[in-house]
């Protein structure tokens, strides 16, 4: 992706490079093996691969080891206990070293092996066999175990999971820690050592506050957010695996909508929608106790379940015993009886409206992602053949697809935003709907152009088709226009549509002349 192309966009004042992060992803080539903090572009996060993570981990271990004058293995135990925070280790250690040592099982003495028989032999506390001293080990606490038993003990702990990181002496009453030097020395196999080291690495990511794994499928990268990041600004992260997500809540990227709205929306989707829609479509509330009733018999004489037992007419919801016929139209009664149901239905209709569009944009984005892969792997090749273009001359097509993918994401979340936008804030709603409509129309035109109009140029007629240049101009134009619309939409939503509050309706009239026409 060409950064200059973006910077040439001078009609809209972009306040920082967040937009750049958002709309253009995958800009960091896979070949940058070092963790490269992209401060130059205003990015507040760093993508880390396994080697980067390990390096950071070794760095903090080395720092603690130097300051506290303890071994690297001891520093590891301390850091792991204090969630890999150098500050917390310092604080606790210098406040009361003995308390810390006791808590993590670090002895400050070395005890001789207990149970050493005559002739420097000792009995292993696990297999009860007697061994020469050099084959007996303890973690400084003096409890003697042979090499083989240590190996078995370590191996079963490692296979039990990450609990092996807090391994202690096998003696039940002893809390002396078995550190990673012991593991390295006594583990039975390289496989065990590898697993242990992997747990250690995972612990560094999972227990530290600044790093999180990318939730993308099969992704092995982690993302570090710089201290003080986020807040009012975006938490959006684009991983090198091409998955983009919100670092704060680990859901899909959801700019410009906040994490709280996303969480309410997603839980609404899972908890309520299906059951509620089903209930409303098939049931009526009992006129007395309001419980939902599904009609399972043929006649209209309904009897509510105990303890209510209210008997009523299914059609008019009137009391059965004061009921003769209800074929005659009674406007007043009708309005009264159906009012509650209508309210509830209206609610569901509203929810369905937003949900459908949210879901449609979600799946449209998934398809666009697949389509872009096809464009990159197949169609660009074909165009190079049929239109005689160089690869760099065709970048505008992938630009367009990246734009589509980014915009679908934004558009999807604006539907969750719209659902929660209070209905009585008429002016805000109007502005929101205007901006959303504008952006959506732009995006549909762009998406259609990228999807359909490209096809004609894929056929090989022996010579380049004439209209290609026009296609290029059109697609580039639509890409740019759509980007602007979405930037405007994102900015307005992130400001809480505050333009409205400050300036009132007249201002809207000036800035968005179509607003009143649409509203």
């Amino acid at each position: 992706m060409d950064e200059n192309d973006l910077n040439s966009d001078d009609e809209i004042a972009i306040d920082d490079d967040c937009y750049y992060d958002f709309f253009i992803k995958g800009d960091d080539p896979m070949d940058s093996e070092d963790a490269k903090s992209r401060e130059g572009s205003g990015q507040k996060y760093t993508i880390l691969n396994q080697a980067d993570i390990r390096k950071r981990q070794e760095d903090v271990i080395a720092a603690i080891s130097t300051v506290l004058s303890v071994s690297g293995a001891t520093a590891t135990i301390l850091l792991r206990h204090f969630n890999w925070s150098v500050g917390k280790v310092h604080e606790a250690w210098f406040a009361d070293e003995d308390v810390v040592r006791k808590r993590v099982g670090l002895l400050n003495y070395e005890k001789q092996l207990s149970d050493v028989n005559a002739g420097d032999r000792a009995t292993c506390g696990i297999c009860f066999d007697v061994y020469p001293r050099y084959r007996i080990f303890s973690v400084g606490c003096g409890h003697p175990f042979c090499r083989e038993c240590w190996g078995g003990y370590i191996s079963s702990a490692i296979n039990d999971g990450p609990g092996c990181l807090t391994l202690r002496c096998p003696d039940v009453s002893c809390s002396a820690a078995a550190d990673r030097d012991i593991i390295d020395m006594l583990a039975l196999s390289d496989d065990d050592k590898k697993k242990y080291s992997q747990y250690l690495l995972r612990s560094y990511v999972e227990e530290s506050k600044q790093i999180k794994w990318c939730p993308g499928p099969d992704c092995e990268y982690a993302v570090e957010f710089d201290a003080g990041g986020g807040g009012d600004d975006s938490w959006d992260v684009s991983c090198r695996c091409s998955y983009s997500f919100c670092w704060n809540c680990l859901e899909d990227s959801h700019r410009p909508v906040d994490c709280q709205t996303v969480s309410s929306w997603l839980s609404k989707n899972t908890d309520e929608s299906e059951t509620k829609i089903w209930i409303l479509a098939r049931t009526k509330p009992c006129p007395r106790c309001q419980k939902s009733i599904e009609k399972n018999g043929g006649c209209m004489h309904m009897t509510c379940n105990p303890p209510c037992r209210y008997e009523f007419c299914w059609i008019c919801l009137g009391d059965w015993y004061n009921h003769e016929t209800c074929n005659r139209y009674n406007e007043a009664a009708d309005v009264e009886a159906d009012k509650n149901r209508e309210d509830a239905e209206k609610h569901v209709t509203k929810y369905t409206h937003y949900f459908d569009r949210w879901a449609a944009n979600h799946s449209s984005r998934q398809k666009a992602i697949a389509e872009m892969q096809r464009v990159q792997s197949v169609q660009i090749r074909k165009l190079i053949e049929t239109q005689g273009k160089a690869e760099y001359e065709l970048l505008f097509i992938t630009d367009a697809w990246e734009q589509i993918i980014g915009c679908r994401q934004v558009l999807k979340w604006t539907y969750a935003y719209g659902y929660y936008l209070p209905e009585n804030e008429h002016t805000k709603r109007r502005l929101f709907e205007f901006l959303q409509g504008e952006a959506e129309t732009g995006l549909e035109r762009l998406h259609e152009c990228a999807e359909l109009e490209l096809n004609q140029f894929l056929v090989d007629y022996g010579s380049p088709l004439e209209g290609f240049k026009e296609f290029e101009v059109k697609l580039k134009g639509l890409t740019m226009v759509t980007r602007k619309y979405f930037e405007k939409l994102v900015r307005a939503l992130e400001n809480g549509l505050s333009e409205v509050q400050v300036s009132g309706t007249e201002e809207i009239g000036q800035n968005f002349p179509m607003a009143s026409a649409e509203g």
Partner: protein
Amino acid sequence: MANSNLPRRIIKETQRLLSEPAPGISASPSEDNMRYFNVMILGPTQSPYEGGVFKLELFLPEEYPMAAPKVRFLTKIYHPNIDKLGRICLDILKDKWSPALQIRTVLLSIQALLSAPNPDDPLSENIAKHWKTNEAEAVETAKEWTRLYASGA
């Protein structure tokens, strides 16, 4: 006895269990499987199980001592940490197992569990509830069951 590959640890433990049994506990290996033990525990004095003789089975899995022995009550017992299949809720038989523990220590712990039932960490919800809402009555039931099922007849 066809137990040629029996680890020395098991042989030693068995010898010691037979030569110096713990008070109120007996454990002897089965004749055809040296990893399978028939166990008897006497109900501890001052407990609802006093006077009872409880039969258990104990099996040493292949991984023993890296994995805990499997122990189960064969005698019916009314106890909040023991279910109707005789399974026992005891930390050292699960996540707190250490290879430095032994058959002897396990059986002593089970004996202690009979003296001190722990309804806050129940295996049998009903019995635990009974224990918490009306301990005196629950203890009576436990005594009754001891008479009925563990009288050693």
